[in-house]
């Protein structure tokens, strides 16, 4: 099909903070080109902050992580999930053994679900054994 | 066209309360006397108007008035806000 033309606006929710404003993604010819507020959404009622207005740039950014990366000799190398988790676990264990549990801090955010935040604080308190847990909103 | 654009700006600035601070004059480089008069006159005018209100713009007065026990239209006293 030559030149198939397509214009869809896809409703979604902004992923930046805990508010959850309704957005509309402008998808032209299958490509994400813009973001608009969803005027009938009860949370934001047609208004967005600067982060919400620029979601499409965030989604299409070349800087977006697409695979786990591990730093070796100062360079980031692509790796598998298992490898990445193993490296992280080893690093945490070594740090706790050498410097004690209080040397580890955990920082969570509003971009992450409530359940994941709960998991993070459980990890900090029960697994690592520290009270050093805080949230980006408190900064 | 220039007169229209300057008039536009003057009207717009006056609408938001920043009037009388923009002036337009056509002066040739041979009209030194006129230049002195126009610039001198306008400088005096600005001096008499005083500093630009933007210089002393301060948000605090509004915050203080809203915090203090000021009566609202419904007659309900707003409570003094804790620090």
């Amino acid at each position, binding site marked *: *099909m030559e*030149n*198939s*033309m*397509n*214009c*869809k*606006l896809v*409703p979604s929710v902004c992923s930046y903070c805990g508010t959850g404003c309704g957005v*509309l993604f*402008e998808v*032209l*010819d299958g490509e994400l*080109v*813009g973001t*608009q*507020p*969803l*005027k*009938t*959404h009860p949370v*934001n009622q*047609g*208004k*967005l*902050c*600067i982060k*919400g*207005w620029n979601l499409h740039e965030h989604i299409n950014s070349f800087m977006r992580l697409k695979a786990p990366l591990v730093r070796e000799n100062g360079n980031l190398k692509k790796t598998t999930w298992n490898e990445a988790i193993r490296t992280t676990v080893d690093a945490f264990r070594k740090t706790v053994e050498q410097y004690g549990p209080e040397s580890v801090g955990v920082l969570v955010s509003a971009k992450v679900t409530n359940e994941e935040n709960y998991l993070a604080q459980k990890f900090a308190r029960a697994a690592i054994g520290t009270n050093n847990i805080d949230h980006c909103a408190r900064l | *066209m220039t007169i*229209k654009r300057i*008039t*536009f*700006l003057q*009207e*717009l*600035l*006056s*609408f*938001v*309360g*920043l*009037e009388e601070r923009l002036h337009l004059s056509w002066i040739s480089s041979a009209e030194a006397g006129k230049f002195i008069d126009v610039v001198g006159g306008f400088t005096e005018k600005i001096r008499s108007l005083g500093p630009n*209100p*933007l210089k002393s*713009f301060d*948000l605090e007065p*509004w915050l203080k*008035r*809203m915090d203090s026990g000021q009566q*609202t*239209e*419904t007659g309900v006293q707003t409570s003094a806000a804790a620090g």
Partner: protein
Amino acid sequence: MKEKIHIRQSVKQWLENGTVDIFLGYRDVEGHAVPHGFTLADLDEVESMAASESRYALEKLAAKIHERHPDKIIGMIARDCTQRALNVLSIWNQLDAGKIKTITVNCCPSQLKDHAACSYLEPEKAGTGKKQFGLDPHSDIEEAASAPKHERFSRWMYEMQKCIKCYGCRNICPVCFCRECSLENDDLVHAGMLPPDVPIFHLVRATHMAGRCIDCGLCEEACPMDIPLRLLYRKVNHIVSEVFDYDTGSSSDQSPFSVLGDKVTLEPKPIHQDTLEDA
């Protein structure tokens, strides 16, 4: 109801007989009326075409589509403000008027009609704080201009210093199309400063709206801080009408702001994506 079915039929016919290549209307998606491009390839989607009380800038979508497909004909539902925006966009070479076909919806408030059906008219009560320190967005420009100078200044500053620099007013504006926006120029508006330089930010935007603003009110609807932008731009339109003798959006004739000189000799110039290296 009858009117809605009539529109659906027209859209189907237009797509089938090639009057338009794509039609921009609204679709019901889980209770929300969402803008959608109806095409011949998915003709059955026209059945779910819905009316929308909320106003979206379909003409802005059309300009984006036109840039990618300059030879296609775009149909759309056009409110009165949409019509004015289309005039302005074609004056400024963002759209080819010959490639647009509209189904008009006559909803602007006017003394000539029984009632208006504009979402902007929903009564928004300005609360006590706003009335006391700021400006009622539904007041008219004479009222706003009648107050003494220092009060005018303080009321406008109260409103404008609430700005969170979301650029919503500019992003949603149907007639804002500049690739390099002055409001992102660091010499005028410093990056990283909140609130932005007040009132510079809003006055710069207001000046840029001269000869372009078609008084749709979408900017005020998009402002999270309820700054009475439409009131400000209405004053701009008033000045333009008095000083330049020009009623923005009333026709697609050349505007006194578009080009210096008598004739426009430029062709409509949608810039193709591949000519922009760093877009």
